[in-house]
């Protein structure tokens, strides 16, 4: 490998071994799961098959759960993208006023343990006598996604060239017109990135959904959790593999939009002031 930079002395062999063992430990179970989904065991032979995937697709309950997941994901990500983008623009170069309150609450929603988040929302819905259902799931998902959208869009805003807005103002644009025709178009990629991130967060969430969803309105992860309590099966392998592939595709998408960095930066925000987004 010729590309090793001379300015970085190699880590000791032990570190490399640990890296490889770690990667092995992280990935082996998932690989086994995917293999299990593609193999049919008969008493005397093992055959490749797509049968388990067909069973998943033909399972009405699973498809209903998928429908719920997609429905919640789409609505929640749309809502949190709109609210989060609006928040990021509102915070943009403003000082004082509401700023500390909004930022403080966004940090709270990021760093509080999921379980506290889940049960506090459950308590709220109980006190306000909201009926648990997909609506309450959407509300919960929006609540934890807004901050990620704020971070994604905020990171882009921080890199904007101020002279563009000044130029718009000099040409007589009102504040609204400046936002509408100068700032917003420049934000589109990060808004899409934030929206996709919140869809993934919503699609993957188990714990909070488990607390606030209504009876018989499971999302896919909740369904998987319940089914898993009964044991493993090739059909569940196929279902999990499908969900894994979706995540993989989303990840590739994220690596392009670099929204995934924001995810970790956001969670570490109160410890280390987040750095500029890497292009």
């Amino acid at each position, binding site marked *: 490998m010729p*590309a090793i930079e001379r*300015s*970085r*002395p*190699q*880590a000791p062999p032990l570190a*490399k071994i*640990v*890296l490889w063992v*770690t*990667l092995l*430990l992280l*990935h082996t*179970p*998932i690989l*086994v*799961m995917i293999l299990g989904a593609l193999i049919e065991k008969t008493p005397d032979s093992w055959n490749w098959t797509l049968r388990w995937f067909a069973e998943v697709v033909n399972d009405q309950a699973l498809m209903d759960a998928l429908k719920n997941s997609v429905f919640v994901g789409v609505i929640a990500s749309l809502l949190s993208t709109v*609210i989060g983008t*609006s*928040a990021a*623009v*509102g*915070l*943009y170069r*403003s000082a004082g*006023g509401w700023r500390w309150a*909004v930022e403080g*609450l*966004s940090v*709270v*929603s990021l760093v509080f*343990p*999921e*379980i*506290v988040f889940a049960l*506090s*929302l*459950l*308590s*709220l819905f109980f006190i306000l006598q909201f009926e648990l259902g997909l609506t309450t799931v959407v*509300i919960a998902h*929006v609540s934890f996604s*807004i901050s990620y959208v704020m971070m994604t869009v905020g990171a882009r805003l921080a890199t904007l060239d101020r002279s563009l807005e000044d130029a718009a103002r000099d040409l007589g644009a009102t*504040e609204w017109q400046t936002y509408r025709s100068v700032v917003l178009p420049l934000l589109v990629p990060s808004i899409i990135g934030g929206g996709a991130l919140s869809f*993934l967060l919503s699609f*993957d969430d188990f*714990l909070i959904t488990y607390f606030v969803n209504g009876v018989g309105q499971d999302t896919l992860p909740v369904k*998987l*959790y319940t089914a*898993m309590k009964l*044991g*493993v099966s090739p059909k569940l392998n196929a279902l*999990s593999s499908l969900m*894994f592939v979706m995540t*993989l595709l*989303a990840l590739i998408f994220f*690596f392009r939009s670099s929204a*995934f960095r924001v995810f970790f930066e956001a969670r570490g925000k109160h*410890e*280390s002031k987040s750095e500029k987004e890497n292009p």
Partner: protein
Amino acid sequence: MKLRDLFLLPVGLWFVVFVLLPLIIVGVVSFATRGTYGGVEWSWTMANYVRAFSPTYLGIFAESFKLALVTTGFCLVLGVLVSWAMATSSTRLRQLYLMAIVLPFLTNLVIRIYAIRLFVGAEGPLQAGLTFLGIPFDAFALTQNKWLVLYGMITTYLPFMVLPLYGAFEKFDFSLVEAAQDLGADVWKILFTVILPNLKKALWAGSLLVFIPSLGEYVIPDLLGGAKNMLYGNLITEQFLKARDWPFGAALSVLMMVLLLVLALVFRMWEARRARN
């Protein structure tokens, strides 16, 4: 009201109603009484807090605290070595490693745990391998135990340690390492006297990012630990979803929040003191 404040209105309303208000409600509920058939009766009491400090629950808390600490410790050691190896490989490999670390993390937790259970479960590769090698094992004990919980915790939270550390390594001035090498320091001396002191902030940030969610973890012990492993997160969940003793569950979560708040404040103070020096 300026246009900018109008932009902040939706988020402000949403956060107040669905983040702040719920937390306040939990605080209030923790001083209420459990109704006869579950639910909440509004007569005020400190009993929930007194109960939370009884030996049984303190024991469960200590167990969770220990698990969170051990998880953080493992992630710390692994994280340093892993991110060191990552940061010193070629540019292309660095990207690949990063993706390989992040991918399982972005994969749904329930799926990852499902995969682990499949791996260690009956007729799974691990049991098949052990049988093949003729090593005796207890099939049931193998599928649900503390070590499995620890494995699940470490593989779940490692990225939270690796990413801050890797970021710090990326900015680290490796000519310092070369200087130390020229002066005859061995690799471990370099690690402890040159590299780690420069990564302090990332080490702390990573540790908190691992420790905080570990303390309240519910899903991993629930699915990998079996019924024997009652942890704090499971205890809270049981109070809310099974025992229907919300006031007690609320008191337990308030205590957890207070502890985490104290930890965060200590970290802040430490950081402020460091900034002054």
